[in-house]
């Protein structure tokens, strides 16, 4: 748990660290995308403006694709570019390049496309209410037990809604492609999370035209949060096609408004819950979940978001009889994609609000209700996976204690009687399975390469990217701390698919948990096998053995198995646990919620680098705050948000106090951390508002407009 400083902090501060837009190549030209402004329709005619020299432009359409017009991963159903039909606003129709950025933008703005419009679904509610819109595979987790419903059991039924969320990484999406006809290689410089996804995409679109695509990330990746997991595949494909056709290096940097409008977002959800609770024991006996996601126009990675979502949908509760049904719904909006949390924020938005609903029906304190129903060692998840530790309950107890929850509850109750404005406090808890779901890690079969040089420098080759989360600092730290090697002699190399093996995508809170653990174990293994206490001395005395290269492969735990068809078994080998309390101030004049403080207690196992770990929690908390309070992306009849004054992410003046504590830090395992701090805070904020104002709102974000509507028409549950 040492606070090693990040190796890239200083060059990032003084501006010398290179992000994608800071890189230029000799003869490079600029590209942009022409995308559909029609939600669903047939392209009738594309008309270019007259006062431009058309031959100065390189233009590619689906017709120029040498390989296949299908993005290969994760679910191969999305074309790179529209052919004669568009299925959503933002679908790419042409890639266009020109030596002058200004000319290019002005040209693209004047291109006219005529569409024959077809009926389109663009409203979240319209999409998710209608079962005719279901597509893809349905998932059922059936943990029904033969329990007779008692007539006095309390039936609680609610539908919870969450909206799109925009990643709003500060660096927009971008790609540079360089075609080398001599060796028939396409070199791609990318700001991305998954270099191998990009490689497969470029090789798919280029087909026989190239021998190989080599992907290298830029030094700096300006934030990602899941947003640079799948869209870069599409962008790299089209940029490469432009480079191939023009014969020149091509750079595409998306304009902020385009990035907002056409790239992936978090899936909107509609989650309907039925519970039956025994008023005598206060225990939930039965839970039925209908979990629906708006996938957008194509499935892409929605099936995996869905599977993680349903596996977290019952929350931290021990419920004997559970039935969960998960489905994807199609709309004519850009495909929704990965976003920190990956289906779990939606799941917790429902179950953690529902817990407060049942508690209020039982006239019980939300903490006491959770204590009564929280799962314990020996209980099981609906997938039948056994609960092996009570750490979730420990997080809950600790956060309630350190936030002075009970005392505040009483104080606020008294304060609220005398004031028009209200104060509130709320709880939530959650967990996040580390790594790919089910057999995913087994299938991924991650590989790492290590070279130990003659001067005992250790070079680590992984395809895991550092997009700000500090992965390259922490991965190196896990290696050098394991064998007490000097830090300056251990570096993670810049991911490049011709040099770094496929250690899997940088997603799913798996980088430290899976790849870091592999590195740590490997360090201990060579120490043991070579029999050194000091690697530098060993290398010095065995010079003829070095440089030496090692290949390491992921070894799956043989005791872990998951039935992908029936969703039974061990969904995740290790879970991170967390509980949270939030305190809000409600302004009655303006219906605004002000978040004052948020307390987090987490079990992420061993935090490798405490400050980096805290940074993840702080950043996740604030993204969750935006999700709960201000961030909405699409407003019916007004279209999509385009910029930072439209789309309200929290800024410095909005930031609450944040308190963080990690427990069980002496664990041997460094578990997943990246996503969980985004999962659980939003329901705590929502529950605090309920505590303050006595109003249930089942939809994020809790904008003042929504609160006002709810207050002025309490019967109108849905807005």
């Amino acid at each position, binding site marked *: 748990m040492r*606070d090693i*400083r*990040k190796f*890239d*902090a*200083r060059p*990032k*501060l*003084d*501006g*010398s*660290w*290179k*992000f994608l*837009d*800071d890189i230029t190549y000799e003869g490079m030209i600029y590209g942009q995308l022409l995308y559909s402004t029609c939600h669903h329709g047939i392209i009738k005619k594309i008309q270019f403006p007259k006062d431009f020299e058309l031959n100065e432009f390189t233009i590619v359409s689906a017709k120029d694709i040498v390989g296949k017009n299908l993005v290969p991963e994760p679910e191969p159903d999305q074309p790179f570019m529209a052919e004669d039909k568009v299925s959503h606003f933002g679908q790419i129709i042409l890639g266009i390049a020109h030596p002058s950025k200004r000319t290019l933008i002005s040209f693209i703005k004047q291109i006219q496309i005529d569409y024959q419009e077809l009926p389109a679904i663009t409203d979240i509610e319209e999409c998710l209410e209608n079962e005719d819109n279901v597509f893809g595979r349905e998932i059922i987790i059936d943990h029904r037990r033969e329990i007779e419903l008692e007539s006095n059991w309390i039936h609680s039924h609610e539908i919870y809604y969450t909206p799109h969320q925009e*990643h*709003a*990484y*500060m*660096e*927009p999406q971008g790609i540079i492609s360089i075609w080398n006809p001599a060796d028939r290689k396409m070199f791609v410089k990318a700001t991305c999370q998954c270099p191998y996804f990009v490689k497969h995409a470029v090789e798919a679109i280029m087909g026989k035209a190239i021998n190989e695509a080599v992907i290298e990330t830029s030094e*700096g*990746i*300006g*934030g*990602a*949060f899941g947003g640079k997991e799948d869209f870069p595949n599409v962008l790299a494909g089209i940029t490469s096609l432009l480079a191939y056709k023009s014969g020149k290096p091509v750079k595409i*940097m998306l*304009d*902020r408004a385009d990035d907002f409008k056409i790239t992936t977002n978090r899936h909107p959800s509609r989650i309907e819950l039925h519970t039956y609770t025994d008023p005598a024991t206060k225990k939930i006996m039965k839970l039925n979940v209908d979990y629906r996601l708006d996938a957008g126009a194509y499935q892409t990675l929605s099936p995996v978001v869905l599977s993680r979502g349903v596996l977290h949908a019952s929350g931290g509760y021990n419920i004997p009889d559970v039935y969960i049904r998960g489905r994807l719904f199609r709309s004519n909006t850009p495909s929704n994609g990965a976003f920190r949390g990956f289906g779990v924020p939606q799941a917790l938005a429902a179950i953690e609000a529902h817990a407060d609903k049942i508690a209020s029906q039982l006239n019980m304190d939300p903490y006491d209700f959770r204590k009564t129903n929280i799962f314990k060692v020996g209980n099981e998840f609906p997938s039948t996976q056994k609960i092996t530790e009570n750490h979730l309950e420990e997080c809950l107890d600790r956060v309630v204690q350190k936030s002075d929850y009970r005392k505040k509850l009483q104080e606020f109750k008294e304060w609220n009687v005398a004031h028009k404005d209200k104060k509130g406090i709320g709880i939530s808890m959650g967990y996040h399975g580390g790594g790919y779901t089910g057999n995913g890690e087994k299938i991924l079969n991650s590989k790492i390469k290590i070279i130990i040089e003659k001067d005992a420098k250790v070079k680590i080759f992984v395809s895991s990217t550092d*997009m*700000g*989360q*500090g992965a390259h600092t922490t991965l190196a730290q896990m290696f050098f701390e394991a064998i007490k090697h000097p830090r300056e002699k251990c570096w993670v190399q810049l991911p490049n698919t011709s040099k770094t093996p496929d250690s899997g995508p940088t997603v799913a809170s798996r980088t430290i948990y899976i790849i870091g653990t592999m590195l740590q174990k490997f360090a201990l293994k060579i120490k043991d096998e070579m029999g050194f206490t000091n690697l530098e001395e060993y290398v010095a005395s065995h010079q003829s053995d070095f440089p030496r290269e090692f290949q390491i492969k992921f070894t799956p735990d043989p005791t872990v198995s998951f039935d992908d068809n029936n969703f039974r078994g061990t969904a995740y080998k290790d879970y991170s646990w967390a509980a949270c309390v939030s305190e809000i101030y409600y302004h009655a004049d303006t219906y605004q919620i002000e978040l004052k403080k948020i307390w987090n207690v987490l079990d992420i196992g061993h935090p490798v*680098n405490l*400050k*980096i770990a*805290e*940074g993840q*929690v*702080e*950043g*996740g*908390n*604030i*993204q969750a705050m935006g999700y709960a309070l201000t961030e909405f992306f699409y407003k019916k009849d007004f279209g999509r948000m385009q*910029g*930072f*004054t439209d789309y309200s*992410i929290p*800024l*410095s*003046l909005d*930031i609450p106090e*944040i308190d963080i504590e990690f427990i069980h830090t002496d664990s041997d395992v460094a578990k997943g951390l990246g996503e969980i701090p985004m999962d659980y805070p939003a329901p705590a904020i929502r529950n605090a508002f309920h505590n303050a104002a006595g109003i249930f709102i089942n939809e994020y974000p809790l904008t003042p407009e929504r609160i006002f509507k709810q207050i002025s028409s309490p019967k109108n549950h849905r807005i």
Partner: protein
Amino acid sequence: MKINFILNKEAVSIDVDPMKRLLDVLREDFGLMGSKEGCGEGECGLCTVIYDNKPVTSCILNAIHADNKEILTAEGVAEEPLGKLLIECFDETNAVQCGICFPGFLVSSYHYLLTDGEPVLEKIKTALSGNICRCTGYKKIFESVLLACQRKKSGEA
């Protein structure tokens, strides 16, 4: 049009379209990549520079605005004693995540440290309210600037 200005303490002169964005002048004509483009509309602060002794977003200034003025970019701030102090504090607290917004934060913080420097959280929050960060949740940014203010005050720098 010929434009003369002081860039990072050095007199420079350039023949340029007066309407060219100052951000593009800095990046393309002077190779100063510390000023980044995040929105192009003055809303994110990635391109913050000190212009005429005040922090501004260079994406909504034009080359002509620079004429006869003094400009300090993140690269220039990093050479100043107070810039160095701030860099040390940001580094020490592991505040930097993706880092693309940090040259902008460095410039705004530097201006605060230079012109006020009182270690008061609310004042720091206001001084940084034009700079957006999506990674960090700001907490460690505030801590770093507070630390720098305290060190400046106690004469450590």
